[in-house]
């Protein structure tokens, strides 16, 4: 009996575990996707309607000298000095078909954009205008050829072209922070590699040669990186490592292979770990002495190349350079500690034949930094793009697959109508970072950059998109759940202000690219919960079988207790409680196991991947690692559903127990 009870508890625990882990992971994935959907595109968007574009307020810029006869974007409208730039004396007459100017109660012209921002301010909402555009994006990729950071290294260049969407970068978005990735070590190395490359010639289709940067340009690039990074570890870039000679401690023997040709050593190879070679090397008074196994000995010439069988990683810190004296990377020196054959190497080496392996990257500041890093940085939670010689772009991380790195330069190419023809225009940009575009349909092609660039391209090629879609206001909320409520509040406030017909307010539930996905999530959630309930019911049915067996087994005892005055209710309570206790116990065990599993989800995934022989979960869909937070919704569901279903399961045998006739049982005993 107790074995069956244990098995029942085990089965229910297993189901509780399964349901909790499954619902938690799916819930986490949904939350992640939702975050991604609403971080690039805020939970609420306010876009101008056709009425806005037909309004006097919008059209008037096109005929006003004060506006340079240029239509204004929402951002420009928000910062414009004049609500009505029209001057009856200077500008042409207002066309008769235009709608009337909208006025406030006091007769002043109503500013549609500023009124909208005022309402958002009153609701204490973080809002920023956005603009989307499109252009061809051409990247010039300069890559090292040969062994990096050595004299043997040269630079080659290639190009990458992609037609892209361009969206204005919203530094105020509270979630963008979670999407922007920190620079990788290879990005850092690349920035150093590019430090001496001039950005000139960027506009050309195929610049013939890579031009060296001027000393001042090189030093300023170096300063921008070095001020915002602390290098903690470096490693050699090839087997050959000439600096080793200066690092070897005096009087310590190292195992080496040293081929001899014509009586002279041609090269010295150090194994990483101590092992028998052709002899040993020892440093004496700054010279390397070779002691061969065969008893020969000779001094190794300084020019003999030194090799290490493998790459050496070492702790390193940069010796603070005096930048005005630095003319190449070789002028930078590291203070290093490394191990070779179990012996410590200590000393200073120049940046030659080594690259950065680990570094601390600074991107959080309390006040604007004096030396802006070449990557996005945060000042008091607001994100800023670096402003170097050229505007920065943040690329979707898919570009990393094309080996694009931080510091790569390129340009946007777009057509602008001139008086005679369409002419290609180029806007140079530099790659400042990567972000995770999540699941957006156009995510792989959406480049973030500052709003001026987007507006410049839009103004030049204003037929590129439906105007309603390219410009608007993003409204950020801390609680996604309040998006629908806030939308209603804003609609009421806009209505009250009399500007509702000029604006369309949408919550993320209605975004075209998100709608289907969100509905699918909702259906999935219901479906998974339903499956959870069914599986739980099936598992809890075990309790029914177990307790029915128990009732049959304990018939005599039930009759005895009944004869002694136990009421039917108390007998029923015993069996119902039995079910409830089993359910509760299983819930606790299953929940504990689920917490443990979620805590170690990465190991579980690795194991599953190992079993399958390939990645169990595609990172594109599920993120770098599966969510490991216990879902509250799932926990509440389990904590309520399992004991209730178990109690109900306990009721069936309980009722059976009360139907027993004690008289019959006692007589048959």
């Amino acid at each position, binding site marked *: 009996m107790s074995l069956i009870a244990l098995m029942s508890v085990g089965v229910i625990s297993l189901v509780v575990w399964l349901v909790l882990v499954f619902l938690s992971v799916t819930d986490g994935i949904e939350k992640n996707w939702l975050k991604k959907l609403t971080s690039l595109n805020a939970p609420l968007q306010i876009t101008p309607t056709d009425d806005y574009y037909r309004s006097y307020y919008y059209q008037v810029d096109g005929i006003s000298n004060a506006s340079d006869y240029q239509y204004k974007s929402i951002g420009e409208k928000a910062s414009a000095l004049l609500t009505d730039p029209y001057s009856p004396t200077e500008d042409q007459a207002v066309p008769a078909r235009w709608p009337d100017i909208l006025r406030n109660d006091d007769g002043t012209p109503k500013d549609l954009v500023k009124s909208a921002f005022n309402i958002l301010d009153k609701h204490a909402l973080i809002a920023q205008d956005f603009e989307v555009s499109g252009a061809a994006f051409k990247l010039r990729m300069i890559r090292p050829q040969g062994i990096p950071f050595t004299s043997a290294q040269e630079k080659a260049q290639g190009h990458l072209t992609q037609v892209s969407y361009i969206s204005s970068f919203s530094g105020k978005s509270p979630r963008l922070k979670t999407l922007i990735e920190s620079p990788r070590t290879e990005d850092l190395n690349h920035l150093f590699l590019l430090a001496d490359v001039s950005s000139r010639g960027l506009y050309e289709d195929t610049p013939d040669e890579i031009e060296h940067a001027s000393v001042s340009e090189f030093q300023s690039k170096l300063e921008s990186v070095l001020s915002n990074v602390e290098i903690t570890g470096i490693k050699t870039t090839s087997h050959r490592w000439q600096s080793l000679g200066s690092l070897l401690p005096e009087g310590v023997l190292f195992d080496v292979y040293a081929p001899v040709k014509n009586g002279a050593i041609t090269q010295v190879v150090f194994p990483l770990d101590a092992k028998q070679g052709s002899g040993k090397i020892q440093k004496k008074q700054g010279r390397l002495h070779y002691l061969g196994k065969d008893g020969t000995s000779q001094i190794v010439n300084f020019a003999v190349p030194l090799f290490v069988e493998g790459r050496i990683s070492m702790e390193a810190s940069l010796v603070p350079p005096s930048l005005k004296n630095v003319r190449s990377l070789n002028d930078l020196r590291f203070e290093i500690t490394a191990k070779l054959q179990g012996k410590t190497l200590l000393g200073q080496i120049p940046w030659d034949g080594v690259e950065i392996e680990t570094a601390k990257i600074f991107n959080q500041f309390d006040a604007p930094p004096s030396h802006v890093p070449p990557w996005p940085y945060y000042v008091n939670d607001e994100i800023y793009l670096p402003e170097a010689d050229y505007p920065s772009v943040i690329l979707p991380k898919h570009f990393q697959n094309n080996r694009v790195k931080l510091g790569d330069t390129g340009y946007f190419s777009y057509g602008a109508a001139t008086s005679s023809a369409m002419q290609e225009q180029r806007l140079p940009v530099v790659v400042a970072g990567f972000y995770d575009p999540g699941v957006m349909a156009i995510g792989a092609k959406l480049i973030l950059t500052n709003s001026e660039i987007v507006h410049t391209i839009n103004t030049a090629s204003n037929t590129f998109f439906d105007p309603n879609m390219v410009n608007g206001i993003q409204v950020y909320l801390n609680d996604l759940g309040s998006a629908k409520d806030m939308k209603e509040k804003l609609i009421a406030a806009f209505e009250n202000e009399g500007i509702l017909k000029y604006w369309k307010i949408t919550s993320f539930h209605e975004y075209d690219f998100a709608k289907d996905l969100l509905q699918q999530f909702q259906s999935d959630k219901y479906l998974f919960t339903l499956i959870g309930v069914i599986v739980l019911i099936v598992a809890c049915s075990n309790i029914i079988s177990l307790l029915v067996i128990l009732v049959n087994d304990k018939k005599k005892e039930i*009759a*005895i207790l009944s*004869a002694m005055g136990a009421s039917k209710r108390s007998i029923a309570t015993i069996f119902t409680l039995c079910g409830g206790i089993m359910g509760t116990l299983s819930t606790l065990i299953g929940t504990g196991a689920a917490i443990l599993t979620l805590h170690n989800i990465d190991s579980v995934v690795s194991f599953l991947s190992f079993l399958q022989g390939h990645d169990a979960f595609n990172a594109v869909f599920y993120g770098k690692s599966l969510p490991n937070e216990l879902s509250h919704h799932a926990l509440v569901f389990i904590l309520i559903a399992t004991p209730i279903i178990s109690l109900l399961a306990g009721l069936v045998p309980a009722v059976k127990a009360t139907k027993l*006739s004690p008289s019959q049982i006692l007589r048959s005993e």
Partner: protein
Amino acid sequence: MEKFVLKATNLKKSYFHPTKCDILNGVSLSVNPGETVAIMGPSGAGKSTLLHILGTLDPPSSGSLEINGIDALGDAGAALRNHHIGFVFQNYNLLDEYTVLDNVLMPSRIGRISGKEEEAKRLLQEVGLEEHLSHFAKQLSGGEKQRAAIARALLNNPSLILADEPSGNLDDVNSEKIHEILISSAKNLGKGLIIVTHNHALANQCDIIYTLQSGTLKANKAI
């Protein structure tokens, strides 16, 4: 007016499977405090059925039953058994997984009456089981089990004790011991005692002997 411990009037009991079969055909019976009653009769006559009906374990088809002036066929059932009736069965019906003391204390636990430990120990001493308090019921011999069962029946100080062949499974020595305990408890404590038995020796110790035949009780004078 005389106060009966038990008053049964015109009790009838019929079974309908497969055909109608009248087990009791109008049984009337009253028991006074301190009165001992033996019910005899051939096997299958319905003695146990009558006893179970009197003990509210089984409802009659018709008739009325009062125990201590309370209508025993109403809602009172379980509480009535707990407070007013003590059962002694032929096969003892102790709970094997519990100790002797726990078994004796069971009626007080069911009735949520606290502070009965001393009483239980006293009763067990009276039936000569003071050495076996902490033994499991299954470790006892038949006679010991029945003595423990009697102690259990007496714990809640019921006014009526119903015994169904109390010595049916015991040897003569043990039987006599049980008879003596039962009769003397009833007499000394003023409880009504109804014993269903085939044992003439036991029946003869009772105040009244009834024979159940053809569903009715016939009174024989005590010898």
